C-alpha cells in the first residue's frame, strides 16, 4: 500500500475489492439471511430492534403508572392493575431492555470492529444468545397476556410464592434471558482475549473494550446465581420445597440475599458499558486525547470487583446484622471512588478540547450531569441513618432512575446516535437530534427531580394512592414523563427519517480514531476491505476533514497490521 490516506479514501468509496455499494445490510436478502445469520453486525441490529421494542413496551407501562398517579385514588386503573403495571415496567425495563441494551446491541456491533476483527470469536454462540433472548422475550410477553405479575420486579418471597398471577412464567423468562446474557459475556471475554490484533496490547485497547470486558466478567460471574435463585423460587412455588417459606422453616431473607447478589452487580452490567460509550464519545467529540486512560481502564475493573461486595445495601432494613450493614455501607461508599475517577477524567478530557455539540455529544454531556446526580444521591442511601428514612421511598426511585435512565439509557441513545452512521450508512439531522436530546433531558429532570423531593418528604414507592400534599409533585412528575416521551419520539423520528431520507454517511463522520471508522459506512460483510491501520485509539492529530467525502481521513499512520 502507498499512503494511509489513499487507502482510506478508496475504502470509504466502497470501491476496494467488492461490488460498488455492497455492504452487510444488502449482501444477502430474505428473512433467513437475518434470522440465522452469524454476522455480528446483523445480530447486533436484530438485538437493537428487539431491545428498542422492549423499551417501547416498558415505556408504555411507565406512562400508564405515571398517568394513574396524576391524582390520588382511582384515575385510570384499579389497584391490582396498577401493581401489575409497575411490576411489568420494572421487569421489562430491567431484564429485556437495560441489561442486554448496550452490550448485546451496540457491543455486538462495535466490539469486533474496535478490534479490527471480522467477527466475535464465537459467532454461533452469539446467534444462540439472540435466539434465547427472543424465546425469553416471548415468554415474558406471554406472561403479560396471561395476566401478568404484581410482585414488583424483585419477586420478594413470601409474597411471590403466595400471590396469584404468572410468577412462574415470568421468573422462567428471567432464567432463559440469563443464559442469553451469559453467552454474550463469554463471547466478549473470549473475543477480547483471543482476537486482539498483533500490536494492540491491553493498554492500547479503546476504553469501550475495557468497559465491555468488565461487564462481561459480571455477566459470567453473577448471572448464574440469579439462575439458581429463580429456579429455587419456581421450586418453592410449584413444589413447596420450603427453603424460602418461613411457615416451613425456611428463610425469606435468604431470597433477598440471593436476589441482590445478582441484581446489584446487574446494575453495573448496565452502567459499565454506558461508561465505555461515554469514554469514547467525550474524547471523539472533543477531539482531544482521553485524559487518564489507565485510571479509566482500571476503574472499570475496580467497579466490577466492588459490584460483588455491596449487595447488602439493598437490605439495610431487612434485619440483617448491624455489623453486616456497617460493612456493606462502607463498601458501598468505596464504589463511588472509581465512579468519580471516571467522571473527573471525562471532565478533564473536555477541558480545552474542541467540543462540538453534535447530537451524540449532547447526550454524553447530559449523561455526565444526570449520572452525577444519580451517583451522589447514592451516597445518601449508603448512609445507614438516612437510608432508614429514605428506604423504599420515591427518593430511591429517583436515585436509580437517575443512574439507570439518566445514565444508561442516555448513554445508550448517545451510542446509537454516535454509531448510527456506521450501522446504517446514513447521516441524521443534527438539529432535530439535538432538539430531541434537550427535550429528553428536560422531561427526565422534571419527572424524577420531583420524585427526589416527594421521597425526602416521605412518599413511599409503589403506593397506589397518597395524601393530597403530594399531589403537586406527582403531577409535575407525570407531566415530565409526557415530555420525556415526546423527546424520545422526536429522537426516534430523527433516526427513522435518516433511514428514509438521510444523506449517505462517510466512513468517518465524527473524526473518530478507533478502528471501526476505518471500515466503510455501513461496513461490508467482512468488516474491513483492506488492511487495518492500527493507531492510538485517542490520537486525533492525523485526522483531517475531507470536503470531497464530507468525512475525516487519516493523513499519517503508525503501523500496519493484517
Amino acid at each position, binding site marked *: 500500500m502507498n499512503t494511509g490516506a489513499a487507502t482510506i479514501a478508496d475504502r470509504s468509496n466502497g470501491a476496494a475489492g467488492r461490488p460498488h455499494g455492497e455492504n452487510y445490510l444488502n449482501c444477502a436478502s430474505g428473512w433467513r439471511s437475518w434470522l440465522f445469520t452469524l454476522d455480528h453486525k446483523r445480530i447486533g441490529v436484530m438485538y437493537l430492534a428487539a431491545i428498542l421494542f422492549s423499551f417501547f413496551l416498558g415505556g408504555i407501562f411507565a406512562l400508564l403508572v405515571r398517568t394513574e398517579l396524576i391524582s390520588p385514588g382511582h384515575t385510570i386503573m384499579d389497584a391490582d392493575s396498577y401493581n401489575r403495571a409497575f411490576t411489568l415496567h420494572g421487569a421489562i425495563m430491567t431484564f429485556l431492555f437495560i441489561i442486554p441494551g448496550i452490550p448485546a446491541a451496540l457491543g455486538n456491533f462495535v466490539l*469486533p470492529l474496535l478490534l479490527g*476483527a*471480522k*467477527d*466475535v*470469536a*464465537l*459467532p454461533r*454462540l452469539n446467534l444462540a444468545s439472540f435466539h434465547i433472548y427472543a424465546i425469553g422475550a416471548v415468554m415474558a410477553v406471554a406472561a403479560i397476556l396471561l395476566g401478568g405479575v404484581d410482585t414488583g420486579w424483585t419477586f420478594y418471597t413470601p409474597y411471590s410464592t403466595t400471590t396469584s398471577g404468572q410468577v412462574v412464567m415470568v421468573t422462567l423468562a428471567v432464567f432463559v434471558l440469563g443464559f442469553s446474557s*451469559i453467552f454474550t*459475556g*463469554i*463471547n466478549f*471475554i*473470549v*473475543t477480547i*482475549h*483471543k*482476537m486482539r490484533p498483533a500490536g494492540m496490547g491491553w493498554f492500547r485497547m479503546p476504553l469501550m473494550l475495557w468497559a465491555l470486558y468488565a461487564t462481561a466478567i459480571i455477566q*459470567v*460471574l*453473577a*448471572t*448464574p*446465581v440469579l*439462575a*439458581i*435463585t429463580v*429456579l*429455587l423460587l419456581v*421450586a418453592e412455588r410449584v*413444589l*413447596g*420445597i*420450603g*427453603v424460602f*417459606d418461613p411457615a*416451613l*422453616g*425456611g*428463610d425469606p431473607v*435468604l431470597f433477598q440475599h*440471593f436476589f441482590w*447478589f445478582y441484581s446489584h452487580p446487574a446494575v453495573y452490567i448496565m452502567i459499565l458499558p454506558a461508561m465505555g460509550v461515554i469514554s469514547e464519545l467525550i474524547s471523539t467529540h472533543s477531539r482531544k486525547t482521553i485524559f487518564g486512560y489507565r485510571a479509566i481502564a482500571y476503574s472499570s475493573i475496580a467497579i466490577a470487583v466492588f459490584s460483588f461486595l455491596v449487595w447488602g445495601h439493598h437490605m439495610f432494613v431487612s434485619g440483617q446484622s448491624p455489623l453486616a450493614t456497617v460493612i456493606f455501607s462502607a463498601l458501598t461508599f468505596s464504589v463511588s471512588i472509581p465512579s468519580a475517577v471516571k467522571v473527573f477524567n471525562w471532565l478533564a478530557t473536555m477541558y480545552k478540547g474542541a467540543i462540538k455539540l453534535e447530537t451524540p455529544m449532547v447526550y454524553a454531556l447530559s449523561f455526565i450531569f444526570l449520572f452525577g446526580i444519580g451517583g451522589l444521591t447514592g451516597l445518601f442511601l449508603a448512609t445507614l441513618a438516612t437510608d432508614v428514612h429514605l428506604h423504599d421511598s420515591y427518593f430511591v426511585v429517583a436515585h436509580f432512575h437517575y443512574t439507570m435512565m439518566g445514565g444508561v439509557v442516555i448513554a445508550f441513545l448517545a451510542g446509537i446516535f454516535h454509531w448510527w452512521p456506521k450501522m446504517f450508512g446514513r447521516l441524521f439531522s443534527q438539529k432535530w437530534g439535538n432538539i430531541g436530546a434537550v427535550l429528553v433531558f428536560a422531561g427526565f429532570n422534571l419527572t424524577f427531580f420531583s420524585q427526589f423531593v416527594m421521597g425526602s418528604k416521605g412518599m413511599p414507592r409503589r403506593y397506589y394512592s397518597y395524601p393530597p400534599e403530594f399531589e403537586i409533585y406527582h403531577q409535575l412528575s407525570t407531566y415530565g414523563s409526557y415530555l420525556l416521551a415526546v423527546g424520545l419520539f422526536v429522537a426516534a423520528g430523527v433516526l427513522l427519517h435518516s433511514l428514509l431520507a438521510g444523506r449517505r454517511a462517510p466512513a468517518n463522520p465524527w473524526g473518530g480514531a478507533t478502528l471501526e471508522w476505518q471500515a466503510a459506512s455501513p461496513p461490508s460483510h*467482512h468488516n474491513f476491505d483492506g488492511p487495518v491501520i492500527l493507531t492510538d485509539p485517542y490520537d486525533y492529530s492525523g485526522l483531517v476533514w475531507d470536503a470531497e467525502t464530507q468525512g475525516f481521513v487519516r493523513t499519517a499512520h503508525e503501523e500496519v497490521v493484517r
Partner: protein
Amino acid sequence: MASAAATPRYEGKHHLAHHFDTRRQQFDSHKLAMWLFLVTEVLMFGGLFCAYAIYRASHPEIFLFAHTLLDKNLGAVNTIVLLFSSFTMAWAVRAAMLGERRRLSALLAITLLCGFGFLGIKAFEYNHKWQHGFLWGQQFAYAELPDYLAGHGADAATAPDSAADAHAAAVMAELDHAAAVTVAHGHDPALIPRNVHIFFGIYFVMTGLHGIHVLAGMIVIGWLLRRSLRGDFGTRNYTAVDLGGLYWHLVDLIWIFLFPLLYLIH
C-alpha cells in the same frame, strides 16, 4: 459400529473458521469459552452450596438426623461409577488426540454407559425416598417416619448410624431444642428434629439439578460418539471431545462435593 468402516469424514472436517487467523487461535478461543461456561456452572451450584451451608450452620440437627435416611452405599457406588467414567472420558480425549478412532468410540461408549448407570442408581434411590415420603416441604410424610425408623432399627445394615445418633443427641441437648420431638414406638427413642423436610428440599434440588447436568453430559457424549463413529475426529480435530470431556469432569466434580456433604455427615 459398522459405519466406522465407511469413508472417514475427518479430512474435510477440520476447517478454520473465516474469522480466525490460525488453528491455534481457534482452539484456544473455544477452550477458553468452555472454561468460562464451567465457571458459570460452578457459580450456579455455588448458590445451592451457599443455601446448604446456611441451613446446615443454623440447623445442624436436621442434617445430622436426615442424612441417615439416605443410603450411603448407593451413594458410594455412584461416586465410583462417576469417577470411573471421568477416567474413561480423560482417556477418550487422549485417544482422540492420538487419532485412535476405535478406542475413542469404545471409551465414549463406556462413559455413556456409566452415565446410564449413575442415573439408574439415582432413580432407584429417588424411588425409595418417594415410597417412604421422604420429600420436600409439605410433601414430607412425617406420619410414616416413626414406623420407618422402627422397621429399620432392627436391620443393622440400614440403621441410622448410632455414633451419628449420639452426636445428634448431643447437639440437640446443646441447642436445648424444645421443639425436638421424641417419638418412641416402643423402640429406640429416635430423635426427629423439626423441619427435616428442609434437608430433603435441598437434597432434591441439588441432586436433581446435578442429575439434569448428567443427562446433558450424556447427550453431549452421545453426540460425540455418533461423530466419532462417523470418523469426524482426528489428530488435528479433537476440540469437541476435549470440551465435552471438560464438561463431564465438572459434572463429576460437583458430585464429589455432593456425596460427602449429603451422605457422610458427622
